[in-house]
Structure formats: C-alpha cells, structure tokens
C-alpha cells in the first residue's frame, strides 16, 4: 500500500480556526500524524511585558474568546499573590460564578460542535440556542456576551443585584432540564454511541505520560481537577464532584462534559445562596513589588497555568501562559494511531481544541507530491459523515425525536 500524505489545510474543525495536520495514510488507516501549530501566535507574552498590569488584564482576556475569564482570572490571581492583596470574599464568589457560567457556555458550544462534526446538525442548533440563555445572563451581569472584563486587580468590577440572582436561578433551571435531556440522548441512543465509542482511544497510562488535562484526561480516568486539588477563588468552600470516566474515548469525553454541566449548575446555586456581603474590590497599587507567582485555573478545556514575574515597576517582567490545549494536542497523534481517516474530525474536536489559547500562528501546507491530496476540513468532515452513513449511522430518527420534544 503506498503512503499518501494528506495535508489538511487551514480550516479548523469547529471554530474555523486554521490548523494544519499532515496525515500519512495507508489505504484508509492513519499511520502517522504531524500537527503543525503556531497558528494564532500574536506575540502576547512579549506584548504583556510592554504594557502595564492594568492593560494586561484586558490583553490576557483576549488570548481566547471562549475561555477569556479563565485567562484573565489566572493572571489577576498571580498578580494579587505577588502584591499580597487579600481580595474580598464577595469578589471571589463573583469570579467563581462567572467562571462557572463560562464553563457552561463552553461545554454547550462543544456539544453543538461535536454534533456538527458527526453530522448531527440539529444538536448544534439546539445547544447553541440554549447557550443563548447563558449569554443573556452574562450580558446582564457583566455588560458583554464575550470578553467580560469583570476582573480588576484587587477584585471584580461590577456587583450582582438580587434581581440578577432571580434571573440566574431561572436560567439555570431551564438549562438543567435541557441538559438532562441531552444526557438522555447521548447515553441511550445507539446511533450516537456507535459513532463515538471506541473512537479516539487514549489509555490511562498514555494520558498520564503525555500530560493530558481537563475533560480529555478525566475521560481516561485521570482524577485531576485544579478546582479541587489547588483551590482558588471560592472553590475551597464549595461542594462539588469531579467527574471522571473510564471509557477513554470520545464517548467518555462527552459524558464527562455533560456531567460537568450538571456540577456547574450545582456550584452556581451554592454560590448564589452563600454569596457573602461586603465590598467587591480592594485598591491595588500601580507598581507591583518584585516577586513571582504561579497561578492555576481550571478552564473549560483543562488546567490553565500562568506564571508572572514582577520587578517593582508598572510593567511585568515576564508573563508565561500555558493553555490547556497545548497539553492536550500532544495526545492527538496517539489517539489517531491506526484509526480510520473518517474519525479524524471528531477526535480532534473531542479535545475541544482552542488554538488561540495555544499558540496565540498559521500555516498552510501544500504538497507537490503527486500522490498527496489537500483536503479542507469541511471536505474531511463530509467524508467522515458519509463513511459512517454507509455503515448504518444515520441521525434522522434522533433528529425527529429532538424536534418532537420541543
């Protein structure tokens, strides 16, 4: 069988972010995969050194549009540790609330995208419609749907009123009903199980060796969650479960994310019930004293780590960001070993890649080799859907069920 290399050029799975994968095939089996990253490299770490701390709060937020609160909180936590600021409890609870709302919107987004990748577009439309409930709540509290800007060094910028609390409870109740229905579909419908099971296998040991984090790691049985192991904000005082699963495949990752949605609703209810009174911020100095700090945050995709070093001036000396997708990307080659080409879109989408967190840069690979072919992501996706349709995976029945329910 000759080797064919398919460079899958820059149209990324869900978020239309460019990423380049060179896949070596033998017939239809994948024998090798190199991931060419460096996509959204905008030079943020260098830019942080040239801007003041206050400007950096807003810059780190824009590392990624989906986990923007994760990045800005991790940064602010590190700076507050260096400056030895003791932020008020109310601020910690509000940060937790926004963090969990962000987790909900990210997981619902992922669910829709996974549905889109396997050809189940109805799920995309339904989950993104439900996601609008969360976006409304966020816009109500923070003033923007994305890139909330709620953090400031020393606390949060805006407060929550009792009317907001009522609306949030209502929104969470609707979302919980809908999530339970999605869990029902995902775990009972044979078509979905057939499409997602045994795809993208990553054994427990491999996940440990390659350093997988977040739901990708937890679906392989790795019991790691920064919210419980290294508590920050208000998580030390809240009661929640860490969801792990033993399936080690894409189905497991779906189950973990759905379980985390339910836990998030639980956490939000606790936060709102126990929201302490008090101020929402303390005054922070402009010049942060010399020092260093490491801060970790459980972003929806996994553990996000920021390291900040200060030198006594208004601008940081060094800011280092390690986003979760970077740790998870190295597992993709392992997951795709000996698998069919048709599985590629869903496997990559299953780690919930966020390339802008990761590289913060792009390249299109063209090959002059006669035997190689360039496939755009959408072509690959269509290929995957048809391949499975020929083998009996058809979503029309579930589509009808979903539509009848609503």
């Amino acid at each position, binding site marked *: 069988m000759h080797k064919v290399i398919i460079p899958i050029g820059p149209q990324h799975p869900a978020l239309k972010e460019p990423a380049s994968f060179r896949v070596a095939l033998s017939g239809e089996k994948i024998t090798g995969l190199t991931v060419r*990253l460096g996509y959204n490299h905008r030079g943020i770490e260098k830019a942080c050194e040239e801007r003041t701390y206050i400007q950096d709060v807003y810059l780190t937020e824009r590392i990624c549009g989906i986990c923007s609160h994760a990045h800005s909180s991790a940064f602010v936590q590190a700076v507050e540790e260096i400056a030895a600021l003791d932020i008020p409890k109310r601020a910690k609870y509000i940060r937790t609330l926004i963090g969990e709302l962000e987790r909900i919107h990210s997981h619902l987004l992922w669910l829709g995208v996974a549905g889109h990748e396997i050809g189940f577009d109805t799920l995309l439309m339904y989950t993104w419609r439900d996601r609008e409930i969360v976006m409304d709540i966020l816009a109500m509290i923070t003033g923007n749907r994305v890139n909330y800007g709620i953090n400031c060094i020393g606390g949060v910028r805006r407060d929550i009123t009792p009317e907001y609390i009522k609306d949030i409870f209502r929104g969470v109740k609707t979302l919980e009903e809908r999530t339970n229905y999605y869990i029902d579909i995902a775990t009972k419908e044979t078509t979905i199980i057939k499409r997602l099971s045994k795809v993208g296998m990553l054994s427990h040991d491999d996940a440990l060796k390659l350093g997988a984090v977040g739901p990708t790691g937890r679906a392989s049985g790795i019991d790691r969650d920064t919210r419980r192991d*290294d508590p920050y904000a208000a998580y030390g005082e809240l009661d929640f479960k860490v969801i792990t699963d033993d399936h080690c495949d894409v189905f497991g990752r779906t189950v973990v994310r759905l379980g985390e949605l339910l836990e998030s609703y639980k956490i939000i209810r606790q936060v709102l019930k126990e929201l302490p009174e008090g101020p929402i911020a303390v005054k922070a100095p402009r010049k942060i004293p010399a020092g260093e700090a490491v801060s970790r945050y459980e972003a929806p995709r996994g553990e996000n780590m920021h390291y900040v070093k200060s030198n006594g001036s208004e601008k940081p000396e060094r800011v*280092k960001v390690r986003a979760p997708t970077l740790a998870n990307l190295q597992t993709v080659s392992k997951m795709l070993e000996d698998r069919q080409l048709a599985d590629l879109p869903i496997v990559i989408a299953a780690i919930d890649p966020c390339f802008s967190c990761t590289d913060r840069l*792009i390249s299109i690979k063209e090959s002059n080799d006669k035997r190689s072919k360039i496939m755009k992501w959408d072509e690959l996706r269509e290929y995957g859907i048809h391949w499975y349709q020929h083998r009996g995976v058809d979503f029309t029945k579930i589509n009808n069920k979903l539509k009848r329910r609503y």
Partner: protein
Amino acid sequence: METKMMQDLLGRFPYLNEKVRAQRDRRIYAEIDYANFVEVFEYAIQKLNFTFLCTITGLDEGERISFIYHLTTQDGIILNLKTSVPKEKPVLKTIIGYFRGAEIYERELEDLLGVKVEGLPEGKRYPLPDDWPKDQYPLRKDWKPNA
C-alpha cells in the same frame, strides 16, 4: 505538606540551603545550578511524587537565561525548579525521557529564546512560522520588532 517536602529536599541536597522557600501553601520555589539539575529533578519526580509537568518557563535575565520547570503532585503542590545557563552558550538537555509531553515546551524555548535543547527528535518548529529568520529571538529582552 510543603514544609515537610522542603525539609526533605534540604536534607537530601544540603547545597540547597537558602535556595528553597515556600512562598505560600502549595508553592515551593527552589533554585539550583544546572550541574545539579538532573539529580534534584529525578529525586522530585521519583521520590516526592511530582508526577506532572505543567510547563517550562524561559526567562532572559541579562547575562544568563533561566528556566523554571513547574512540577506538580496530585494534591496540587507546585515545585518551581529554577536553573540557568549562560547566554553566550545556552544549551540544555531534553527531559522528554521523563515527560514525553515536554517536547513542545522545549521547542518553544528554542524558538523564542534561542536555546539549544540537546536530544530533541526531528520535528517542526513551534510557535514561529517557517519563514521567520533563524537568529531572531522575540522573547529576549534586547529584541525589538522591525529588527
């Protein structure tokens, strides 16, 4: 928990005296010469249960380039192991033998700080584009854009 670990490290490696501190709970910072790096690193990962590597931070500190290896345990304790090499000859040995996932962090050090990591397998550079000039290291303090 951290103080116990600190005592352990100090007991095993007396040259660490005054170079180890616990800034707060779950955070230990230690500074060592590169010559002693391997033994302290191996001890931390094999005997003290630091089973996970978060990342490797590279810093340009004037005459020397420093590296901080951020290791964690299952219970969330982070050991920040700092070492450094001279800037005129920045050479490191790879740690992918211990953590396969360290490859990408080391490539980042090569690309952005101009460090040579010995032992890395053949592979694409990260994160800079292929046509970025070879001797430009953006994260060095003396590097200015439009250079």
